[in-house]
């Protein structure tokens, strides 16, 4: 188990280094850079000497390999550089935005797991055929609705027409509800779909028959035996979904005028603020690594057979 952990941690380091290097290369190959965008605005008449001075201050006049070495060295020391637009350190910029996005994605994840799980359980448990059909068709609808559209619809109806919840901002729990629902819908739908499928498969397994023969009740079989076995694929999926939520925050945070990593990303891409974009890429890579690790560590707990093979 210890060797497994060390191996996984090494893998994580390699993934982060690769993310750093690839994003550095790709971003610096792009035509244009944020400083010229900021300094040479169309109204600007900054002389090239002035612009060169600022570029030198940001180290952009160094040869590329030196810039890479500096950036990597700084990154190892926890310094991801400064935003060319605001001049604020990237680490602080992301750290300021991250709690907002974590609260949002956390809420969305809980809603998605609870909602998706409930739909899957109900669909596989019910003996009413029509209800089962309706419940099983919900995930497909949920997945096919674009987040942007759902968000705007919720804002229009719940906020503007009924006046129940605010349409914008980061203040308090109320401002979290609508964006969290918007994000949870497609995520919950995916979880529901996978869980329903694997629950159906699990219920047909021989061990369920055994349990039934031993006189276990329907609810007990469903929740204790089938769900436990069926949750492995759903857990893997939930990990992917958690990563996707970070990407979806770009759209949802814009629709709901929320500050967060998503808005930060959108703005940084818009202005080619490379340091910030790279910081977000690293963050996303880090999130994927951590989530994957957590899932892998949870597997043996849910299925002892997995634990023996690692």
């Amino acid at each position, binding site marked *: 188990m210890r060797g497994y952990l060390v191996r996984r941690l090494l893998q994580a380091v390699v993934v982060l280094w690769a993310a750093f290097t690839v994003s550095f290369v790709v971003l610096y190959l792009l035509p244009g850079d944020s400083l010229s965008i900021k300094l040479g*605005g169309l*109204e600007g008449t900054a002389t090239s000497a002035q612009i060169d001075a600022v570029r030198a201050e940001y180290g952009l006049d160094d040869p590329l390999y030196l810039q890479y070495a500096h950036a990597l060295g700084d990154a190892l020391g926890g310094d991801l550089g400064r935003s060319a637009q605001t001049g604020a350190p990237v680490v602080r910029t992301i750290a300021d935005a991250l709690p907002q996005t974590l609260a949002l994605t956390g809420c969305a994840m809980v809603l998605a797991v609870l909602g998706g799980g409930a739909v899957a359980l109900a669909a596989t448990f019910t003996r009413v055929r029509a209800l089962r059909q309706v419940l099983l068709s919900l995930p497909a609808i949920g997945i096919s609705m674009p987040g942007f559209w759902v968000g705007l619809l919720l804002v229009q109806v719940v906020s503007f027409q009924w006046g129940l919840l605010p349409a*914008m901002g980061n203040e308090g729990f109320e401002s979290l509800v609508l964006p969290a629902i918007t994000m949870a819908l497609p995520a919950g739908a995916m979880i529901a779909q996978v869980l329903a499928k694997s629950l159906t498969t699990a219920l047909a397994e021989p061990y369920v028959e055994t349990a039934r023969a031993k006189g276990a009740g329907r609810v007990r079989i469903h929740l204790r035996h089938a769900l436990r076995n069926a949750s492995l694929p759903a857990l893997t999926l939930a990990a992917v979904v958690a990563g996707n939520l970070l990407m979806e925050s770009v759209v949802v945070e814009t629709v*709901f*005028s929320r*500050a967060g990593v998503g808005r930060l990303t959108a*703005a940084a891409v818009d202005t080619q603020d490379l340091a910030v974009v790279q910081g977000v890429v690293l963050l996303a890579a880090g999130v994927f690594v951590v989530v994957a690790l957590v899932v892998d560590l949870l597997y043996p707990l849910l299925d002892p057979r997995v634990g023996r093979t690692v």
Partner: protein
Amino acid sequence: MRLSRFAADPASAHVRRLRRVAGSGAAATAALALVAACNGAGGPSASSVEVGPPKAGGTLTFALAADPTCLDPQQFGTNASLNVGRQLVDSLTDQDGRTGEIKPWLATSWEVNPQATAFTFHLRPGVTFADGAPLDGAAVKANFDAVLALGAKATVASSYLAGYRGTAVLDPTTVRVEFAAPSAQFLQATSTMSLGLLSPATLAKTPEQRCQGDLVGSGPFTLRSYKPNQSVELAKRTGYGWGSSLFAHPGEAYLDRLVFKIVPESGVRAGSLESGQVDAISDVQPQDEARFAAGYTVLTRPNPGVVFMLQANVSRPILGEDAVRRAIAKAVDRPEVAQTVLTPKYKAATSPLASVTPGYVDLSAQLGYDPEGAKRLLEEAGWRAGSDGVRVKDGRRLSVDVIFAPLFNASQSVLELVQQQLRRVGVDLRLRKLAAGEQNQTQNAGDYDFAYYNVTRSDPDILRTLFGTRTVNRLRIASGDLDTVLDDQAQNLDPAQRFAKVAEAQRIVTDRAYVVPLFELAQVHGLGPKVHGLTFEASSRLQFHDTWVG
């Protein structure tokens, strides 16, 4: 040094104005009247309907379309940034948006030498920054020196100080700003928030700290908090008593608090105004204007400066031909652009300058829609209709591109319509949409035919910035008589003489079709029923000093 006193008597603004108008003669009066007339309903007087006497107190919540990114008005030139920054800093002078005249603010009077190289300002005594520091001659000098030190980080402000030699503090309330070359534009520049004054303690901070809100001015509001992508909160400066001579009331602002929320989605912005979640919104999109026809005020004013236009790269083989450029200018139906793609808030261009710019002349006669004339010009120049309708000469198709950044939402539709209009006379216009900053680099590299953008500035010197061959010269015009005309206006302080040169420059640029003016950008804001007294300053940015809620 011989001084022509433009503001001899600090005690009376009226005397000053009379003397100035009388001295500058009938032509200036006519020019100013023309500006005023063209300004019409779009002037700063076009505020919301007044209901009863103004009331002090309360909070105004205003939804901005974009994050200010940087709150320091000396550094950043976006509308969102300047609309906030204007409330935090005062300026030496103010500019009357209707007449273009420069009026007293922190400077009660000023003198300019005839060469327009030395500007002496007499400061109002007793003014303090919000941190208690006195706003004296030393503070003014420190500000101008600091802008110069910011260099490229203060894109707009440092361009206003081009040729700056230094500031002499003659006594605590008198400073003389000197330039190496004539700079008639500088007086107007002192009225902008880009040269707004910050406390010496603020100037000692890093540019980054200032951007993020470590920022103290002497303005009617002070900064309480800035949360990026979320909100900016301002509070009334108690004891404020040095407002511009153009403010409707002296003393403190009416509002206790002014909260800007950042709401990027235009539909959400409109809906939050309708549902009362905010009191007012910026950047009402053309498609949303009708929602605010009744019960709301749509506050609008054209941006002064150069209009949205196609700027030719005359070093390219096709656009180097005078006949082609002239034909394209004739083939564009400007009223159709303004009426079909935009709304009545946006005017068809009648000059390279917007109608609210001081020194603007109406060239609508030269800019008339004349497709037959365009075709004739092209025929005479040897461009014959090809098989697909696009003209051809020496095996080359009459096909040119235009680079643009989607900063103004309707730009794509505007250019698509222009594309159709040009197609009717056999010109193929290809649209090349670029990211905001790419346009700049593409232009500097010269790899384009037309560039499309506008620039906001309430001084006609913007023509020299754009068309002078000794500045960036993005159009790659050969130096010549246009330079002389533009330099002449830069060193002439007499409005009549200066505007005569400005008019000549507009005619030259239009006659040679260096640019194809399209339409005047307008600021369009939506105000809810409780917002009163919100006004535009001369560059069409918002001024909240006289704003009240009730």
